């Protein structure tokens, strides 16, 4: 029997359904994202378009294949909601009583010493409903508290970012260089983590001078070794030991290296957005680059 037409129809429906689901629908939903306002500081637009030098740097990043070892996407496995008591007010007993009556996990047993050493996290990893209830109870009893929304996950523990990456983060990237390998650390938030341009240049020229365990290749060809004419250049890298150029010479970055560093410093992905809620006060402190596994 001849099933040709039926097979064709089935394949056509199958392929077009997946095209609608995987291509068209996401395009309609997030294909036209525009600048949004930061949800905490509403006067702040996010993201900000890259300045020209950083845009050139994106091309250097692309040309040198940085994307093969570095990703630019932060994962998040959950969100913790904490209640932080910041001011106890005039009647600590009433505050503790209000918290116990609110039935949010504070009991007579663990309420002792609640008001010592403020600001203090009094409730950790509770539901948002309970957190708001506790916060209201505390306020009605005359004390002050705040509800912290803290994203958690291995990437965030490593200090690579503050929250999961969303489509909004990439609207000025052409092409988007998400990366899939993590031979090196994630760079989604490197402009905040390592904001020192001198450090970045030194790291590109000789990675192991600043990070001894680094396996990154040296990008010496983005720099120039030249004879010092009169005064040494203010751009010259402060190299020592084996890495130092011969006497009378200096190592200065070429335009590509400067552009690449401008691009790296433009990588910020930590603004609290509607789809990525986060309390700024609670964000983990920026730590140095690490590629070690999360604790």
């Amino acid at each position, binding site marked *: 029997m001849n099933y040709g037409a039926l097979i064709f129809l089935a394949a056509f429906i199958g392929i077009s359904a997946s095209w609608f689901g995987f291509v068209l629908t*996401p395009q309609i*939903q*997030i294909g036209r994202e525009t600048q949004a306002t930061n949800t905490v500081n509403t006067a702040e637009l996010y993201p900000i378009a890259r300045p020209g030098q950083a845009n050139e740097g994106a091309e250097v990043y692309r040309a040198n294949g940085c994307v093969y070892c570095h990703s630019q996407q932060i994962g*998040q496995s959950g*969100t913790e*909601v904490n209640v932080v008591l910041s001011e106890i007010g005039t009647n600590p007993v009433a505050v503790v009583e209000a918290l116990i009556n609110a039935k949010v996990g504070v009991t007579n047993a663990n309420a002792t010493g609640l008001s010592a050493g403020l600001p203090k996290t009094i409730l950790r990893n509770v539901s*948002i*409903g309970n957190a708001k209830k506790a916060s209201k109870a505390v306020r009605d009893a005359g004390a002050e508290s705040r509800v912290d929304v803290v994203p958690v996950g291995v990437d965030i523990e490593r200090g690579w970012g503050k929250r999961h990456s969303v489509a909004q983060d990439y609207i000025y990237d052409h092409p988007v260089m998400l990366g899939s390998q993590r031979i090196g650390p994630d760079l989604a938030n490197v402009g905040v983590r390592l904001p020192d341009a001198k450090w970045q240049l030194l790291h590109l020229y000789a990675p192991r001078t600043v990070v001894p365990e680094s396996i990154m290749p040296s990008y010496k060809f983005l720099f120039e070794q030249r004879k010092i004419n009169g005064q040494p250049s203010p751009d010259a890298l402060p190299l020592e030991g084996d890495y130092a150029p011969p006497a009378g010479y200096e190592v200065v970055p070429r335009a590509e290296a400067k552009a690449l560093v401008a691009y790296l410093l433009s990588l910020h992905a930590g603004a609290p957005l509607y*789809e990525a*809620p986060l309390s700024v006060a609670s964000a983990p402190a920026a730590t140095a680059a690490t590629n070690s596994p999360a604790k």
Partner: protein
Amino acid sequence: MSSPANPTETTAADSRESQARGAAVPIWLIVFMFLILYWGALYFDSNGGWFSAKVYAPYHSVEEVQGLQPVSGGNEMFELGKAVYNRPTCAACHQASGKGTPGQFPPLTGSEWVNEEHPGRVIRIVLNGLQGPITVEGQTYNNAMVPWNSLSDEEIAAVITYVRQNKEWGNHASAVTPAQVKAVREKIKDHPLAFTAEELLKISPEE
């Protein structure tokens, strides 16, 4: 193609084939399929966020994301009060700035009526309105304020809290709770008319 030598044999083969094709799908398989579909629908409903572009893993629904949004200043009553004030209810006369309209509607910024230690009089004014002359910050105003008793206790408490605690307006009075509004509403339920300033000054503000 040659025609079959023995037509009866062909008929037998045909009937065997049609028998195989006509075998019924077992009923348990159909039930199982619908159970799987049902479970899938439930799973999608609780985890899929209904295809919203604003719901990313690890979140499951728009409500969950909405719940985690920061409340500016962390004071929900203040925020609710601000929304009520600018609905516009109060803002229509007293302006969004709280400064009122010179000669017509008194200011709320730094007003001694607003900043009284106990909110009894302010709650009465908001609930039943005000009629006749009133002196605010040395200026006499003679106008009428409409009653706002159609608002809930919560809304009235919030809007008075917003006005009394608005530091930008120079106000530093205590917050008002819905319970206080409810108590005053009970007390004045036999007083259907708008208050006058004179009448209010006779009432102890603590009541």
